[in-house]
C-alpha cells in the first residue's frame, strides 16, 4: 500500500504529542534534578538511574515493535509497517546510545571503571550493533520490497537479544545491579524516588511516541516524493 503525495504533505503545525513529550521530558529532568534527593550511599550518581533505566525500557520497546512491525510486513506487505519498523529502529538506536553513554557514567564512580565485559553490558552493545547494522542495511539495499524483507528478518532476529539482556542479571554472574523496582518483594526505593522513576518512564515513553511519529511522517513524505519523481 502506498500513500498519495497529497496525503503525506508536510504539516507546518507542531504535533501536540511532540509538545506534550517535550513538556513531560522537561518536567522529568526538573523533578529528578531539583525535587528528588540523592541516595545516601551512591550519592548524586544514583540519579543517573532516572535517565538510564527509562532509556533501556524505551530501547527494548522500540526494537520489540520493530520486530513486530517487520513480522507484520512479511505477512501483509503493507509499506506503512515497514516505515514504522524503520522509524522505531532508528529511535531505538538513539535510546540505546543513551543507555551506553549513561551506564559508564554511573559505573565510573560506583564500580570504579567505565566499562566491564559483563553479560548485560556486552549484550546491550551487541544490540546496538545489530540495529545500527539494520539501518546500514536499509541504506545499502535497493528496491523497497527487498529492503523491507531483509530488514524485517534482521529486525526480528535482533529482538531475540532482548529477553537475554533482561534475564542476564539472573542467568550470568554479573556486576550489573538487580532490578530495584520490578521484583517480587516489591520496590526498594522510597516513594519520592519511585515517583520520579515512574514519571521518567512515562516522559521518555512519550518522547519515543513523538519521535517515531515524526520519523514515520518523514519516511512517508520521502517515499511519496520518490514515487512522484518516478512518475
Amino acid at each position, binding site marked *: 500500500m502506498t500513500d498519495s*503525495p497529497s496525503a503525506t504533505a*508536510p504539516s507546518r503545525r507542531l504535533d501536540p504529542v*511532540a509538545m506534550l513529550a517535550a513538556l513531560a*521530558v522537561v518536567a522529568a*529532568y526538573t523533578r*529528578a*534534578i531539583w525535587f528528588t534527593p*540523592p541516595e*545516601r*550511599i*551512591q*550519592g*548524586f*550518581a*544514583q*540519579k*543517573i538511574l532516572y*535517565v*538510564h533505566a527509562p*532509556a533501556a525500557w524505551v530501547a527494548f520497546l522500540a526494537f520489540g515493535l520493530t520486530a513486530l512491525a517487520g513480522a507484520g510486513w512479511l505477512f501483509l506487505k503493507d509499506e506503512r509497517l515497514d516505515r514504522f519498523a524503520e522509524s522505531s529502529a532508528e*529511535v531505538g538506536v*538513539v535510546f540505546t*546510545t*543513551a543507555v551506553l*553513554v*549513561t551506564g559508564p*557514567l*554511573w559505573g*565510573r*564512580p560506583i564500580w570504579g571503571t567505565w566499562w566491564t565485559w559483563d553479560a548485560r553490558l556486552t549484550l546491550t552493545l551487541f544490540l546496538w550493533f545489530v540495529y545500527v547494522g539494520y539501518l546500514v542495511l536499509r541504506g545499502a539495499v535497493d528496491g523497497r520490497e527487498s529492503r523491507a524483507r531483509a530488514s524485517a528478518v534482521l529486525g526480528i532476529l535482533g529482538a531475540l537479544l532482548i529477553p537475554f539482556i533482561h534475564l542476564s542479571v539472573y542467568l550470568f554472574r554479573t556486576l550489573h545491579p538487580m532490578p530495584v523496582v520490578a521484583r517480587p518483594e516489591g520496590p526498594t526505593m522510597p516513594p519520592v524516588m519511585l515517583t520520579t522513576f515512574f514519571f521518567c518512564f512515562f516522559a521518555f515513553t512519550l*518522547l519515543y511516541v513523538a*519521535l517515531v511519529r*515524526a*520519523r514515520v*511522517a*518523514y519516511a512517508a*513524505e*520521502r517515499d511519496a*516524493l520518490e514515487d*512522484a*519523481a518516478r512518475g
Partner: protein
Amino acid sequence: MPDNAIYYRLAYAATLLLYAGYALSLAWRRARLARRRGGHV
C-alpha cells in the same frame, strides 16, 4: 555521601543533547524534503 555529582550532570547533559540533536536532525531532514518537493512542483 560521595561527591560524584559531575557524573550525573554529564549523563543528563549527554542525554538531553542526544534527544534534542535527534529531534533537530528529523526537523532538518523534513525541511530538506520540503525544499526538494518545492523543486519538483
